[in-house]
């Protein structure tokens, strides 16, 4: 009799333990994911900081984009250059949405992602000069052609709209024409200044994590 009581007690104990830990785990996990309570250091380099998220070509304004995107992976599957990455659950409400880290891999403007999007969060584009993913900004202190430590021209060579979006002057020093720049980030990818690129894509979207650098 007493034996049976202990068995039941243990069962009861495990049941309560399982229920409690399940609740705490599920609730905590959901909060953790939805609110994004996590250290920012695990985010890829280009996705944090003040530059703002680079979205694939044809993406709507950020609030509209977040509302429409159903987080389905189709744009990443369609991407020819494999530049479209997807946020993990650590990114809170950005989880599953596509982004580009130009310093890792810039967009080659194949424009396959637009027609692949089933939700209309990415608009299909026709011409390679149409996208406005952001604008490349040259840091003249870092750029070797600007600061006089060398002669480069890599970004000018990489630019799909050479001489339209990036022009050159003395010592191949690049100048971005913001109205023409698609924000594809091929210049950032190819920039020879490797630690912190001398040319970087800046967007008007929020950074992946507020306050992170």
């Amino acid at each position, binding site marked *: 009799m007493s034996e049976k009581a202990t068995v039941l007690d243990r069962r009861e104990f495990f049941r309560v333990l*399982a229920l409690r830990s*399940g609740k705490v*785990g*599920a609730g905590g*996990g*959901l909060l*953790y*994911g*939805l609110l994004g309570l996590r250290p920012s250091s695990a985010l890829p380099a280009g996705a944090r900081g003040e530059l703002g998220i680079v979205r694939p070509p044809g993406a709507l304004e950020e*609030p*509209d984009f*977040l*509302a*429409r*995107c*159903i*987080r*389905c*992976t*189709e744009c*990443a*599957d*369609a*991407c*020819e*250059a*494999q530049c479209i990455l*997807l946020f*993990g*659950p*650590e990114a809170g*409400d950005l*989880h*599953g949405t596509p982004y580009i880290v130009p310093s890792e891999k810039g967009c080659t403007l*194949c424009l*396959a992602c637009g027609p*692949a*999007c*089933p*939700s*209309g*969060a990415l608009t299909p584009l026709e011409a390679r000069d149409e996208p406005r993913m952001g604008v490349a900004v040259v840091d003249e202190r870092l750029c070797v052609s600007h600061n006089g430590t060398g002669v480069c021209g890599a970004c000018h060579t990489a630019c799909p709209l050479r001489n339209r979006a990036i022009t050159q002057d003395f010592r191949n020093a690049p100048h971005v024409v913001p109205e023409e720049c698609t924000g594809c980030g091929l210049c950032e990818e190819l920039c020879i200044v490797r630690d912190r690129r001398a040319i970087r894509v800046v967007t008007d979207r929020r950074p992946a994590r507020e306050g992170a650098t």
Partner: protein
Amino acid sequence: MSKFRVARRTVQILVVVFMFLMPVVARYQNYVAAREIDRVLDRWSGTAAGGVLSAVDSTVRLLPGAEKERAGRVQRDRAQVLEYVQAARGGPWSATVGPVSMTDPLGAAESIVASRALPWVLLASLVVPLVATVALGRVFCSWICPMGFLLELTDKLRAVVRFLEIRPRDLKPSRATKYGVLLAGLILAAVLSVPVLGYIYPPAIVGREAHDVVFAFFDRAEMGRFGPWAGGLSWMAALLVGIVLFEVLVSRRWWCRYVCPGGALYSLIGWARPVRVELDVDRCTQCAQCVAACPEGLNPMKNRMGLECDSCGECIASCDDDALRIGLGGPLVESFRSRSTSRPEGSA
């Protein structure tokens, strides 16, 4: 095993294969587009990643027009190969096969209420799922959903648990819970302007995790690491494990029966489905084998499957008396029949 179940299992397995194959094909496409594929295949020969890629490569090259002869050598027709591999993509949440785009109505509903917009592309990708669901009911759950497939398999683990002298419980909350989850999720999506249900909807999670696992597998291969475990799973996978454990130990098929917001939406869309499981009352011997067999916990003997039945056919397979079959029925068909036989001399 009935033919119906064989067909259903085949489709379920094909969906799982498709789900893991599409990211592989996406990576193959990346290497072809970058003109790297031959070098990659060469470098990875003898590894798992290389094997998978070369299997895809050989299959694609069998397709008509995928190869051409140039300078005496047979090689890939790059443009044609790219066209082939771009023809299909996605997973159970949203997929494209050739010209047909299909999106889960739950994702579409969320997107619509969150953005308060109704884009044409979204409507176009709803056509196939909606037509199928209106005609056949909640068949996504029994034929397509990878989580439904997984839960059907883990359902058998309850016997193992019983063998281990642990008595699995069977909580039975209200079936209306899932409609509440659906409504609450849609309201939350509208308030936050973020489609939140996709974060707890198992087919969506499974699809994303499969995508991440495959991509991580190739990322590691690119870094020269060919270990057996590729990683890439996020903690969302733990949510799936939790659902499975809860199903095995606490409540049979609880997710599909009581919680799943997607199943709830499919149920609502398919409420008047003309193609459904029908009972032949004269043949039924009330043996209740179908009641034990039904994964949704319904009672086919009473012929009241209503919203919840996903036409999986398990009751038909379990019936010894041929009393159950897939036939025409439901409110629409009934009203049509009663109208055509409502003349005074017409007696059924």
